């Protein structure tokens, strides 16, 4: 039986009349990367901060590695945290920050390995306020690893970073995953969750509206695949005459497919009829498409 490192049951957090987290349930298994997805204000960070023990909950049961984070003062020694908007003492350097963490959390920490893994050797002696956003996030990630935690909370670790910096962070997360660490990842980037997470939960307005593997969620909510062809009205007529549902969208003709094999049939027909088209592409829905539609539907309701 797989051991759960995090258990959340009917978690509620209210601020006066406003309900930030509205009775959510989920669990994270040991060695699993679990991602909380949702638009701004969905309640992701509030949930994570309750699990980290920095914010009090209104009601519900929460366990992190068998302990209630609201009561345990030792949990900080067993979890790693990279908070949203990571910040540290101005004028201190990454080397001093790591040394401070080593002294307070884990005197036997292998700082050298962490520096190599996260790649912060180039700016170890640069004052905090002078390093770039991506370097700050990498420093935050390094600090979250000093106590060699079993579980890491990474709250939007790549938010605001350029694509290269984002990929650097992904590599570190992948290597943590390979080392069997459990990770709770919150992110705005669906591509990031699709790539890194074993399971995801989509949150909106304090509720989890669906959860599962990224593929399961896409399967459950995706619309029909579409074949998109750039061509004239003759091509549109040919496709419609063959019984396919097609509609024009500017220079493109979008064909809604019942079956992925229909795409091959349509292209073959167009070749046989010697119809001239400029290019075509097959559009399958990603987790992002599904997410945007699901959240959009809730907004409309």
């Amino acid at each position: 039986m797989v051991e759960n490192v995090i258990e959340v049951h009917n978690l509620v957090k209210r601020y006066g009349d406003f309900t930030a987290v509205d009775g959510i349930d989920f669990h994270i298994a040991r060695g699993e990367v679990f991602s909380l997805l949702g638009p701004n204000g969905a309640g992701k960070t509030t949930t994570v901060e309750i699990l980290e023990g920095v914010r009090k909950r209104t009601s519900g049961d929460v366990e992190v590695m068998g302990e209630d984070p609201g009561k345990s003062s030792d949990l900080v020694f067993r979890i790693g945290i990279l908070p949203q908007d990571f910040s540290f003492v101005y004028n201190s350097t990454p080397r001093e920050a790591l040394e401070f963490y080593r002294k307070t959390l884990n005197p036997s920490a292998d700082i050298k390995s962490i520096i190599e893994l996260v790649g912060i050797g180039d700016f170890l002696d640069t004052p905090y306020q002078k390093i770039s956003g991506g370097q700050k996030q990498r420093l935050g990630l390094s600090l979250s690893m000093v106590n060699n935690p079993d579980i890491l909370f990474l709250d939007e670790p790549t938010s605001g970073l350029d694509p290269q910096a984002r990929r650097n962070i992904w590599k570190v997360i992948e290597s943590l995953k390979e080392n069997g660490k459990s990770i709770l990842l919150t992110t705005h980037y669906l591509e990031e969750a699709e790539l890194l997470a074993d399971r995801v939960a989509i949150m909106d307005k304090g509720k989890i509206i669906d959860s599962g593997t990224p593929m399961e969620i896409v399967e459950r909510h995706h619309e029909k695949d579409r074949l998109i062809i750039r061509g004239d009205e003759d091509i549109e007529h040919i496709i419609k005459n063959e019984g396919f549902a097609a509609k024009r969208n500017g220079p493109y003709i979008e064909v809604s497919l019942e079956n992925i094999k229909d795409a091959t049939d349509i292209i073959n027909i167009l070749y046989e009829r010697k119809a001239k088209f400029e290019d075509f592409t097959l559009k399958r829905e990603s987790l992002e498409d599904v997410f945007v539609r699901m959240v959009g539907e809730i907004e409309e309701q």
Partner: protein
Amino acid sequence: MKFKNISAYLVLHTRAYMRSRSAIFFQIAFPIILILLFGAIFAPTTYSPSNLVIQNDSPSAITWEIVDAINASGLFKVHVISQSVNLSHYISSNTVATALEIPGNFSSNLYSGHQGVLILKGEASPQVADSEYQLINGIITQINYRIGNTSQKLVLSSQIAIGSSDKTINYYVPGLIGFTVLTTMFNMVYTVPNFRKEKIFRQLSFTGISKSEWILSNVIHSFVMLIISDIILVAIGIYVFGASLALSPINILVTGVVLLTGLIFFTGIGILAGLISDNEETVAVIGNLILFPMMFLSGVFFPLEFAPAYLVEISKFLPLTYFINSLISVMVYNNIPSVALQIVFLVISSIIVFVVAARLFSWKQR
């Protein structure tokens, strides 16, 4: 409370602090600039008449002639006080450097052919006591020549208490030391809301360090910096401007206690002020609201003895006044017993303020 956490943060904070030019400026350089500035402004480069209190307990033609002669010399600003005033009490309560007493039997002794003895009293440094004695004695010698040829009818006796001093710089040293204590409060007023806004408290809470350990690290750091800056202030006061300060081991120890007490008190006040400052504008308003009245009305830049009565009354409501008064009593007047009770009161109130601030201060989010 874990010592390793306190020392770990102390090292981190001190290294970061050493890179902060503004922090170094306000903690070390600014007080030095102030003492150099005020020391230079009030340095006795040209002669100006000093104050001399005269109590004439034996009014007669000859005694008023002596008073007029001293007045006419232009060497003193003479203040004649009534016979009904207790001179000793007047000297101690008004911090009088030199006072001339003409005793009640002066005229009768003189007219019966005996010597008339004038008594110079007050509290002054050896240099001041000596120069005042020489100046007054010179005037008296001239009167002696006039009324009795060469015989010494008038005699000046000095009973000035040596050890204290009337130099302005003597007041600036403890005043500016009080100012350095006050600036530690300002650090907290800025640090607490800034660390909260930048979420550095949240980050520190992930390291296992407690808020008490963080506060204590800050107090230790500030105390060390305070000692360094105050040693420099005292050295400049003594060696550059010739301040006369009582610096026996026991005085240094009591001064250290007052400094630490002040530091704890103003750190507590700084935390409380920081807790109610929710943005940069409020921080500046609250910080200056606390800083400026105390800076100008607690005896930092001028001794309160020279201030108008209404300002003295206002100063009684400002906590820094009591710290500076204690420092002046210990460092200038070498009078620890007179402020012992006040220091005990300051220690108790500092502990209360600090405990209240530490309890209200939280770096967890609601």
